[in-house]
């Protein structure tokens, strides 16, 4: 009798797991593990079978599900270092501190308020109009981009858009298919032993490939239009939560239409034309959004902190 109850419970557990498969990718693995251990405990399947099921579930997961925030942090550091080998950082501690205060405040209101090592922002000493978001929250903005901003709200809109890319983990989506699966196999194959020379060599190659995939997307190809729309949607929400007028994103895009050449270097090459994004953002803001009126306190600190940049 008791055995029947236990079996029934295990079946309930497993079917519950299967129902959730369609709901959330991240939940799949956890639920499968719960389901399989329940079934194993009830004696329906052996421990070994349970482990095999769990393992096969892991084998089909994507980069965004396998990589932990710690892995993302190390990928982000290497992507950041690669960006800085193309664009030198601006050595202006006052301006960079202001950028970090604004950016870190905005990030707190995002759907990923904290990354493994925290969000960090840096001004790049380049006239090109551009901004990059590396995984883990390393965000870079050029002087050229900052010069497109009339006020703090506009700069907040730029940073919120980049935070949107981090929050949606868009960088990970640009990793070539199969690379993370290889890395996972390398790590799992090693088992509980200390990482040996050959494994470390293989893993470093897979790491370098991953970093190259992401950097190429950021600097050369750009994200898909769908990803840009997601980042703009996230930006509008973040601005609203913090208390900035989200119409600042619209103003920013309008300012960029005059400064960015379509297909030209930087943002013009890696982003959809501002006009396309303006249509999308207008839809997000609703009919007749209030124009941005920047309070004097914000205007003053913006101009003072970025004196040497603007």
């Amino acid at each position, binding site marked *: 009798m008791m055995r029947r*109850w236990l079996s029934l419970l295990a079946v309930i557990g497993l079917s519950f797991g299967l129902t959730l498969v369609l709901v959330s990718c991240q939940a799949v693995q956890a639920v499968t593990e719960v389901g399989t251990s329940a079934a194993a405990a009830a004696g329906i399947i052996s421990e070994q079978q349970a482990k095999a099921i769990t393992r096969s579930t892991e084998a089909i997961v994507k980069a965004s599900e396998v*990589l932990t925030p710690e*892995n993302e942090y190390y990928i982000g550091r290497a992507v950041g270092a690669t960006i800085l080998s193309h664009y030198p950082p601006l050595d202006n501690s006052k301006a*960079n501190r202001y950028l970090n*205060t604004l950016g870190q405040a905005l990030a707190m209101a995002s759907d990923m308020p904290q990354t493994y090592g925290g969000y960090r922002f840096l001004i790049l000493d380049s006239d090109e109009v551009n901004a990059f978001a590396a995984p883990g929250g390393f965000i870079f903005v050029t002087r050229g981009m900052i010069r497109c901003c009339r006020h703090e709200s506009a700069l907040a809109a730029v940073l919120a858009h980049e935070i949107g890319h981090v929050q949606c983990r868009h960088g990970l989506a640009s990793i070539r298919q199969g690379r993370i699966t290889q890395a996972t196999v390398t790590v799992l194959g090693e088992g509980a032993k200390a990482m040996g020379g050959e494994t470390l060599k293989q893993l470093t190659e897979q790491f370098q490939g991953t970093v190259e995939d992401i950097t190429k997307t950021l600097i050369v190809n750009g994200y898909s239009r769908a990803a840009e729309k997601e980042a703009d949607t996230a930006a509008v929400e973040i601005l609203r*939560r913090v208390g900035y007028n989200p119409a600042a994103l619209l103003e920013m895009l309008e300012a960029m239409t005059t400064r960015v050449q379509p297909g030209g270097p930087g943002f013009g090459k890696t982003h959809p034309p501002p006009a396309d994004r303006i249509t999308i953002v207008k839809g997000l803001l609703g009919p007749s959004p209030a124009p941005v009126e920047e309070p004097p*306190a914000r205007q003053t600190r913006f101009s003072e902190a970025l004196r040497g940049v603007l």
Partner: protein
Amino acid sequence: MNVCRWFGLWLVVSSLAAHAAERLYVQIRAAPIRSSPAPFAPVIGTLAYGEPVTVIETSGAWRNVRTESRTEALSGWIHLSALTPKALSLQAGADTSVRASSDEVALAGKGFTAQVENQLKTANPHLPFSAIDKMEKMAIPLDDITVFLEKGGLAEKGGRTP
């Protein structure tokens, strides 16, 4: 028969209770916990990487959690994105006996880690990792962010809840 039925009922109820008291692990370094489920609510403590917590309440994307491994349990609100159902120290065959401190758990992690970064640095000495180290030092103290928001007339009432 009756005993079996009651036992069955107990099993169902207890499994539901176990599901409600969900155990999760902190997956970021130094995770702040807050007094209420809002982005700028006061921080009342910090959780370590890999620390196990029990969820006691849910509000949108926020979880009210209680620490499991501390002598004096700490509870507060944390964003769901900082938590994972996976026991971090169990990843990639890491030894479960090293879950003593957050540092050991971090070292136990495999995949793309500090060890792999060091290999990449040696092979690519031109990559300016020192500039990234400098960038990482630009963490703004929470009090400064609070003052920044207040002076800018922003984030009233702890910010709008995601």
